[in-house]
Every structure is written in C-alpha cells, then in structure tokens.
C-alpha cells in the first residue's frame, strides 16, 4: 500500500471504535449494512456495527477460510455470500479479529446493496431474537422517481419511530441534523480525495482506497470521520501536487469494478506495480462519496434528499446508468482500461457483467477484462487463472 501517515490515525480510530463497541455497557449495538442510513443511529447514541466490514477484515487477515468452514459445517451452503458465511463462522466460533462482534440489540438493513442482506439479517435476527428493521430501496431499473423517494422517506420516518420506541425517548431531530451535516462533509471529503486520482501519476491507488474505507463506512456522521478524511486529503493532495505516484512508474491507469479481493490485496498490489499499472478508481469506494448529496437544512426536506442519496447508489442502478457512469469515469480519470471482478459472492454487482464489459469497451474503445474471483473466499480463487487474464489485458492496453 502507499504509505500515508494518516494510516496510523485510522488504525487508532477503528481500534477505539471496536473497543467501545465490545466494552460498552450503556450504548445499544445495532448491526447495520454498509449502505444503510447510519445517521439515524448516531443521532440516538447507538453504536453501529458492520458485519460486512468485519468479514472483510477477517479475509484481509487470512482468517476467512476457517470461519467459513465453521459456517459450512453448520449447514450454510458454499453458494451463499462469503461475507455472510465468514460472519456466521465468527459468530459460531467467536473467532476472527477481536474475538467476534458484540451481539446486536437490533438490526438495520437496507436493500440498496443487495436483497441478499435481508436473508443474512433474518438469520441473525432469529439467532439473537432481536428486531430487524428493513429500509427497502428498490432497484432503479428506470432511474429515480418520486414514488421511490416517497416510499423510502416513509420508511425513514418509520425508522425514527422504531428507534424512538426502542430507546424509550423521542427521536433527537436536532442531533440528527448535525449528524447529517457531518455525514455529508465526510462523504464530500472522501469523494474529493478519491478524485485526486485524476492526477497523473495517481497519488494513491484503489487498493489504498479499499483500506481507507473503514471510517467512511463505519463512522460516517461523526466528527472523527470528517477530521480523518481532512487529514488524509491533505496528505494525498500534497503528493498529487508533487506528482508523486502510488507506484514508481505508472504506464497504465485502470478502473476496478466490484468489491476488492480482500485476501489477495498484497499479491495484487505487487502484481500491478510490476506491470506499471495503477488501479486509479473504483466504483465500490466511490459509492460512499455519492452519499454526500443530501442537504441538511430542515427547510430543504433532508429526508427526501437522504432517501434519494441512499437509493441512488451504483449497485442499485440499471445497466444503462452503470455504463454511462463507467464511461464517464474512464474519460475523467484518463483511463487506459478497466477490470471487472466477477464476484461469486455479490450477484447484484456481477450478474450481467459480461454484457457490461462488452458494451463499455465498445463505447469507450478501451479494453476491459472480467476476472472470476470472490471477495472473501480464497478457495474459489486461482492466482494463475486471474493473473494470466490480467497479463493478457495489460498487454492489450499496451498495444492500443
């Protein structure tokens, strides 16, 4: 990874966050999906816990296989999302970093990242006998419209009622607006940092952005999160100004679509560096940058803007929108090609990807490649197969 001084700050932030979550006696714990409106929880002093993040940590620490095997031993099929399997395994064995997650008092899940999370959270709700609140954000086959926004707003207001009832006190609207402002600021800082990738050579790469995702996912809506990304931005901007690239020599600049392959981060980093190829931009990390669209003044109806933000995420878009966005990124970031990770664990990201690749290549004239892998399960990953495909792809960029 590119060395950033801010990294130690992030480690400290995330460690403190987990310590508080594991030791708190006062604050309730809510497990929540990565794309859910966490601002409501912070407004009510509830600690959000992200099973997805935790599963990614397990894989990055090379602990996912043993955990998934424990889940499979308990009957969970290898066909289900590897994040879910990793977490189920951690829950069953109390294994993984920090010895598993603190048990939830309730669950919040939003379908903007997939419908599968409903199934995952249903399993958890049954296991812990805790309530599950779903914020359903239907897929945008034909883009956003008022019906979708109204539908989501009503659910967000119902979420307030749910939280108020759970906490036995009125929903803290005043605090909520403050949290929203912080959330928006953090998302903007994150996006601003990511867009420094337009600089040539890119001062960071997507593997860095995957690592630095932690706070924007988990602490979005806190001051610490804003401060952290300001710090990171400053450092990255400095590198951009001095034209210090994330790799010694940048010949190719590519986009990465889908989640990272968490258990292969180091190897892939070395591979790309050797090939003089920078992963400059990724649809995955960008998703949290898009959450800064909501405004925070009450008179602007923040609920509608918030609903629009949470509906309007890349993975919830129809293919027409996805292709347009990808083409725009290729143009704006001066990319020489793109990599699509056909991720066995993530169907909303992956199903239809072959067609997207074909159309995007045709539209932009840039080569693209689809690699078959998984975000968390090394057992379905082949170094040889993936690297052979990537080598051929990089060669094709060279001949363009």
């Amino acid at each position, binding site marked *: 990874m590119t060395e950033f001084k801010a990294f130690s700050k992030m480690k400290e932030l995330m460690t403190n966050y987990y310590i508080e979550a594991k030791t708190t006696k006062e604050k309730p714990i809510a497990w929540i999906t990565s794309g859910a409106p966490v601002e409501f929880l912070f407004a009510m002093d509830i600690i959000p816990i992200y099973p997805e993040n935790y599963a990614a940590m397990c894989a990055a620490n090379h602990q996912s296989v043993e955990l998934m095997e424990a889940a499979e031993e308990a009957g969970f099929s290898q066909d289900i999302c590897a994040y879910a399997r990793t977490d189920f395994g951690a829950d069953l064995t109390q294994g993984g970093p920090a010895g598993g997650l603190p048990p939830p008092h309730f669950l919040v899940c939003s379908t903007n990242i997939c*419908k599968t999370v409903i*199934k995952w959270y249903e399993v958890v709700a049954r296991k812990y006998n805790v309530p599950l609140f*779903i914020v359903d954000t239907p897929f945008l086959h034909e883009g956003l419209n008022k019906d979708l926004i109204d539908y989501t707003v009503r659910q967000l207001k*119902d979420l307030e009622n749910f939280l108020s009832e759970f906490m036995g006190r009125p929903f803290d609207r005043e605090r909520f607006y403050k949290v929203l402002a912080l959330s928006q600021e953090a998302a903007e800082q994150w996006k601003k940092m990511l867009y420094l990738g337009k600089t040539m050579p890119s001062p960071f790469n997507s593997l860095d952005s995957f690592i630095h995702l932690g706070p924007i996912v988990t602490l979005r809506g806190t001051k610490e999160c804003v401060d952290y990304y300001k710090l990171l931005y400053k450092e990255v901007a400095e590198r951009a100004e001095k034209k210090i690239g994330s790799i010694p020599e940048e010949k190719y600049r590519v986009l990465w679509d889908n989640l990272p392959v968490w258990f292969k981060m180091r190897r892939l980093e070395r591979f790309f560096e050797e090939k003089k190829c920078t992963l400059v931009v990724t649809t995955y990390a960008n998703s949290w940058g898009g959450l800064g669209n909501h405004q925070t003044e009450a008179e602007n109806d923040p609920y509608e803007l918030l609903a629009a933000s949470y509906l309007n995420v890349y993975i919830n878009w129809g293919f027409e929108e996805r292709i347009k966005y990808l083409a725009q990124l290729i143009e704006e970031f001066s990319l020489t090609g793109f990599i699509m990770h056909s991720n066995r664990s993530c169907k909303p990201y992956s*199903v*239809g990807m072959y067609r997207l690749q074909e159309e995007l290549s045709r539209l932009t004239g840039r080569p693209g490649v689809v690699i078959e892998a998984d975000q968390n399960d090394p057992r379905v990953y082949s170094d040889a197969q993936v690297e052979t495909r990537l080598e051929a792809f990089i060669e094709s960029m060279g001949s363009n």
Partner: protein
Amino acid sequence: MFEPFYEVINNVSKTVLKYEKEQGRPVVGVMPAYFPMELIDAAGGYAVQLWGNNLPLGKVDGYLQTYCCSVARSVLELELVGGAEMVKAYAFTSLCDTLINLREVYKRLFPKPTLEISIPMTQTRAARRSYLKSVIQSVVEGLEKVTRQKIRGDALAEAARIRGRSRELQRGLYKMRRQRPGLIKNKDFYAAIKTGFFLPPIVYNEMLETLHLGLDGLEDRGSKGPKLVISGLVFDPMEIYGILDELGVAVVDDDFANGWRTVSKDELRVGDLVEGVTEFIFNPAPCCCIYNPDNDRHPYLVDKVKDAGADGVLFWYIKFCEPDAFDRPQLMERLREESIPSVTIDVELSMTSFDAIKTRVNAFCEILEG
C-alpha cells in the same frame, strides 16, 4: 389419465404456438415468481410461466456466470437459442438479486419489452401500499402497451375467477394427495401442476376437472413407503419423481414456490387491486424470497409436516439459490427440535445424471423406515 398432461409438458413449444395461434393473444413470458397473471389475462395476453428448462447450456455462458442459478441460466439460454421466439414480452418480479439483474440483461440483449412487479420488502405498511400502487399502475400500462388492449374491470374479474378456479382445482389435487397417499404417482402429480404453466387457464381448468372426475373414481392404492414433504423453489427436474416413485416414496405435500406456495393463493381480489396483489404476494404460504415476519416459515413447515402426517422433509435445493440456502440450516435445526428428519439434495435443472440423488434419497428412506 395423465397422458394429456405429459403431452403438454413434453411439447411446450408446440403447445404454446398452437394456443397463441388459436387465441391470437401475444405470449408474455412470466419469470419466477408470484406475478399476478390475472393482469396479463385481462390485458388480452397469453401468460406462459418460465421456471427454467433442461436445455443443455451453452450460449448462456457468454452472458451469465456458472454461479447463477439454473433457472435464470436456462431461461436465458432458451431465448438465446431462439426457442422463445413466440414470447413477445417478459414479466418479472423482483424476487432475488439474480432476477433483478436478469431483467437488465434482457433489456440490453433483446428488443422485447420487460415489466416488473417490484415487491416492497418493508414492514412500513402505508409505504408498501402506496409504492405497490405505483408499481401496479406501471405494470398495467406496460401490459396494455404490449397487448394494445386496456384492462377493463370486468375482464380482470373474469380472469381472477378463472385463475382462482385453476388454483382451487390444484388445491383439490393437493388435498387428495395428502388424504390418499400413493393414489397419484409423484411424477404424474407434478406433470398435472406443471401443465398449468403453459396452457391458457380455461383450457387447463377443463383438463383438471376431467382429471378430478377420473381420480375420484379410483380405489386407493395405499402407500407403504415413507411419506415426505418437499421444500424448495422449483419442482423440477421431473426425473427425480421417477426415482421417488421407484423407491415407493409418497410425497404428501410440498413447499415449492411454483407448487403449494402459489397454488395456495386464493382468488385475486380485484375490488381493491393493491390490497389484492399485496395479499397475493405475501400470503398465505411464506416464501424464502419474500420478507414477511408475520408469516414465519418455521412453524409453518412444522405444521405442514404434521398436518400431512409426513415422516420427513426433503429439501430440494436448486444450486445457487441464495434465499433458499440462507433459510435452510435454521429450518433444519427447527425440524430437528421437533424430531422431524430432513435431508437436502442439490439439483440443477440441466442435470442429466441422477445416481447421486437416488443414493441419497434411498439412504434417507432407509433411515426413516428404521
């Protein structure tokens, strides 16, 4: 008695072409699951249900990964090899992530219109109602465009009556199977249910009425083998029923999305279409793909087994179906608590070798028979 049903399911294209010509109605391919086909009927369309097929998979590999379920893959293969030329439009529901994206794939690949009942998975009732209202409105408009015919109230009521009758007759078969195990061979039973996927409902109803008359006159054959309830998404491949019949297994009830979960639905209430469709989607049988905490699958399945007097449960797992796979371990655990044995078989619609399944089911039967 079942020959006419096999005639249909073994000659699907021929059958659909015949009725398309006879009726002069555009064929609408209906993807899994719970799309209220009454709307298609009332718009003057010919609804044909697509629950997958057993085509050898080839072309689809260029469009869908092998980790997509064989329902999605085989349905797309059918269109890619030109086997669905007669289908003029596709009707989807947002049942799972694969089907949601599959609609996008269809939109990119084929010029045929697609419609979708986007199922609201919220417990915020007022939001669900108003959203579903807008969804139904858009589906109605889409259908009317495909068929160039307005959906009139009287046509919808008539469609509801006819489809309601189909399901009522199917429920009659289910009841007969529960009460008189072994009377209908498993394969014959599902041939009769499957036939309904492809026929105009009025034609299908006539066949079912005739079948009922024939079955009523039969003497019980009895059943010595184990009695099972089967749970899964799709009740294919049919070859497995041949194995069950051979092993003397009597399937006494099921929990298939295209079996009882659909068959159990009452006549669609069209007076208040939004309420009617809500009821149609969410009740009475729970489904792994539909979030509905008020209708828990666990007690439901336990009761089903007890009511049917079954000896055990066979989980019929179509590979890569995540909603089904997520539910299964806890469901099996619940069954264990109730001392109800269960076993899982992994199936793919395009599979050609059934030896492993036979061995597994046989072993399960031996356990049940002590």
